[in-house]
């Protein structure tokens, strides 16, 4: 029983951490740069499929299946999603902010349609199964398997967290914040705003792709239905709940919101008769919406809020991490 609970806990946390990766990516784009990406699902889906195609064994049902190691799949996913983000960004970042929203949304729709219809490559609506899972060799021992996967995912999240914190506190991150605060002033100081924004956008996209790949490999099966706008919505809620602009907030928000989501799913499954469950699934969305409203009312900046980031090399510790006051901003 205990062991069963542990496996379930490990499974739950690992999935939450894959969302945390995606959420960290969105935080680079929105929280730190102010780029409004409403096509998160597209970048995640792209990453998941690229990694799946790179790592699955050769298949008769669809082209691809290169049988590469999982790590190569992850890197390929990040690279592909990063490049796709770069393209979308390059086309739209010079334009006004609302165009980016439309373009990213369009991108997600296109990706979804491609996944669904490019059957020879993606397997169509059935998706791709038998994606190699990390530590598949110990799959017979659920506790061990769960613990190992959890450890890897935690290590990935930690590494990303540390790298993003370093970037945030670097001169690069400082310029990014300056551009977000006042682009005209940053330009007058010789900062190429387009370049910085493009970089941040691409990094965020690459991280989302990595998150998609990590998720796909952990679950072992992907289908176009996983990458509907609902996913974008979930990730946004996670970031807002946790605290936009704060990397720890992004991670925490992913865990909390995924928790609410998973618990409500099992609650509904337990209470509602099976033939009605498809309909009551929308109750979950309502629940998430209510939770979001509650958090925003109680803590308008999310659970953790944005921390004031100061260059790593600056000052004695005391003032380094002041939290912004909740009043008088924006």
């Amino acid at each position, binding site marked *: 029983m205990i062991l069963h609970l542990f496996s379930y806990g490990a499974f739950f946390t690992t999935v939450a951490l894959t969302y945390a990766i995606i959420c960290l990516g969105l935080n680079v784009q929105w929280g730190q740069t102010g780029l409004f990406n409403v096509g998160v699902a597209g970048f995640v889906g792209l990453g998941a499929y690229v990694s799946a195609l790179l790592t699955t064994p050769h298949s008769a049902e669809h082209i691809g299946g290169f049988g590469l190691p999982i790590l190569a799949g992850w890197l390929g996913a990040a690279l592909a999603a990063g490049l796709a983000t770069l393209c979308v960004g390059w086309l739209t970042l010079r334009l006004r902010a609302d165009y980016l929203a439309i373009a990213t949304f369009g991108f997600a729709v296109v990706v979804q349609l491609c996944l669904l219809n490019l059957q020879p490559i993606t397997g169509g609506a059935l998706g791709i199964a038998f994606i190699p899972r990390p530590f598949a060799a110990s799959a017979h021992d659920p506790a061990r398997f769960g613990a190992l996967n959890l450890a890897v995912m935690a290590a990935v999240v930690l590494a990303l967290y540390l790298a993003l914190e*370093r970037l945030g506190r670097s001169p690069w991150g400082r310029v990014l914040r300056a551009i977000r605060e006042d682009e005209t002033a940053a330009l*007058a100081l*010789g900062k190429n705003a387009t370049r910085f924004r493009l970089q941040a956008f691409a990094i965020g996209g690459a991280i989302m792709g990595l998150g998609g790949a990590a998720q796909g490999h952990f679950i072992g099966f992907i289908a176009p239905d996983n990458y509907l706008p609902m996913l974008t919505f979930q990730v946004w809620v996670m970031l807002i709940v946790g605290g936009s602009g704060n990397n720890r907030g992004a991670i925490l928000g992913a865990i909390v919101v995924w928790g609410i989501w998973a618990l409500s799913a099992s609650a509904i499954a337990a209470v509602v008769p099976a033939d009605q469950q498809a309909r009551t699934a929308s109750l979950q969305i309502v629940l998430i919406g209510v939770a979001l409203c509650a958090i925003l009312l109680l803590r308008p900046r999310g659970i953790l809020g944005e921390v004031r980031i100061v260059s790593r090399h600056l000052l004695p510790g005391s003032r380094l991490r002041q939290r912004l006051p909740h009043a008088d901003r924006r």
Partner: protein
Amino acid sequence: MPPMDAVAGEAPFIEARDLVKQFGGMRVVDGMSIALARGEMVGLIGPNGAGKSTMFNLLAGSLRPTSGEIIMDGADISSEGPETRIAHGLGRTFQIPRPFGEMTVLENVLTGGQGQSGERLWVNFLRPRRVATEEKAAVEKARGLLDFLRLTPLALEPARVLSGGQRKLLELARILMADPQAILLDEPAAGVNPALLELIIDRVQALHAQGRTILLIEHNMEMVARLCSRVAVMATGRLLAQGTPGEVARDPAVLRAYLGSTA
């Protein structure tokens, strides 16, 4: 009107030729020409709405001219964006200061730094030591500038808490961090109290003494007279007069423009 001959014989460091900026049907800058020799300090005066700040926005690349040319050190930079001006050695301040409100005063100044390798993404991971060393030097320099402008006690406050006058000083500190050869100062002393005014005059004079080229917009004629040997007067988008502060102050056309009867 021909461009002002800064110092006869020497090619100007900054030169604007027949600049025009049209907003809708209104020619806010209407065939304005001006030239500054290297190391020269020139005052740009004129009534409210004459087009002085718009002229700065054109020179600094924040606005594209409708027509006309901007030559910097012999190179035509008319079509370049604002972010390349610093590389040409040209910096500017804004009439209405634009601090990065949520960043500390010190960070605001640090953002003015040029060519720090830590501004390149990968270098932060590949050469962290180098980034740290450069950052230390930058902080040192920024602290010096904050001292210079008496902002040190506020170094760690977010810039949004600064008063109007302090924002003006920060604006100046930030662009000085970039070490531009030429600086466009848009009313650096507006809204600054008399004690600070002396300080700013003093600082601008020091910058000039370092050999920088300065174009100064200012309504305070006393300050202009003390700082600039040459003054250009702008009215309704055109160059109305030029000369020593004494000459333009006696010019009847200038007096009429200030009394609002040129239109």
